[in-house]
């Protein structure tokens, strides 16, 4: 789900990098905030950051000892994408393997639909494998699938990889591959 949320971040600035006056300082702080969010990309509880929409408040700066750094608490609004378990979303299949299908959904690159969660479908091997349903519908590369989010996982590793991943299910009504003409 896309939403506009209020977030709080701490921006650390070198005192010498702050501008001469209040306006210039604000500009420096906001620039640093945008830089930080751009590097952060996403967080476990807030999802993916799309863009900052407004600045609510820059709190009073607090110097960190004699380090020359000051930190500022900044409250702002931001558009985010955060999937929620139980939510119905659409994804595009980009890889099919024996255990299931991988989809992308917006900024989320890994949405896994296990064979255990696609009843009535069986795997058809080949150069371009796919899943064939009892109603002759196909789940193959490029197909749009309407699914329900089973679970969301946050991945953060030492190589700097930070992302959300989802487990999907098409158990239920109105779930499964969607006719191409609809989308």
């Amino acid at each position: 789900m896309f939403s506009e949320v209020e977030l709080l971040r701490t921006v650390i600035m070198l005192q010498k990098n702050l501008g001469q006056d209040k306006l210039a300082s604000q500009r420096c702080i906001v620039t640093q905030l945008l830089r930080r969010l751009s590097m952060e990309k996403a967080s476990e509880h807030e999802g993916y950051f799309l863009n900052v929409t407004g600045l609510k408040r820059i709190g009073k700066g607090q110097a960190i000892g004699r380090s020359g750094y000051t930190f500022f608490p900044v409250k702002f609004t931001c558009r985010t994408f955060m999937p929620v378990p139980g939510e119905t979303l659409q994804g595009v299949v980009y890889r099919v393997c024996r255990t299931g299908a991988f989809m992308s959904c917006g900024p989320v690159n890994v949405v896994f639909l296990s064979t255990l969660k696609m009843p009535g479908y069986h795997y058809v091997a080949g150069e371009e494998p796919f899943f064939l349903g009892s109603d002759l519908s196909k789940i193959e590369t490029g197909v749009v699938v309407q699914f329900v989010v089973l679970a969301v996982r946050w991945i953060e590793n030492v190589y700097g990889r930070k992302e959300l991943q989802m487990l999907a299910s098409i158990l239920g009504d109105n779930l499964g591959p969607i006719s191409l003409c609809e989308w």
Partner: protein
Amino acid sequence: MSGEEEENAAELKIGDEFLKAKCLMNCEVSFILEHKYEQLRHMSEDPLNQVSQVFEKSLQYVKRFSRYKNPDAVRQVREILSRYQLTEFELCVLGNLCPETVEEAIAMVPSMKTKGRGLDEEAIEKMLNDLSLIKTFE
């Protein structure tokens, strides 16, 4: 997996953040991100270089999965759905998925049928009829 085991959108257990936040439909986000992209296009020869992968993938997603393309239609959809006792989250799910029947709507947003909500099948049917009219005349 998610540490918040009680999170379940079907029961509207979606955490305080979502209950307080303003949720946005895909079609609304599409206009916002398109506008931003156009601004970047005017400022730079290669706007794709200026946007993050998150922005680009989100833009592709909302452009593809927006049910309404006309800004007036989008405004009307939100206005109509706001007349019913829906949370922001439920409103956006309905606006994104556009169910055609009452059964579909309840399957997509089971929380609407929670006791005491005051949303009977007649009200849901009327809501869906109003939405389909917008789609017809868009």
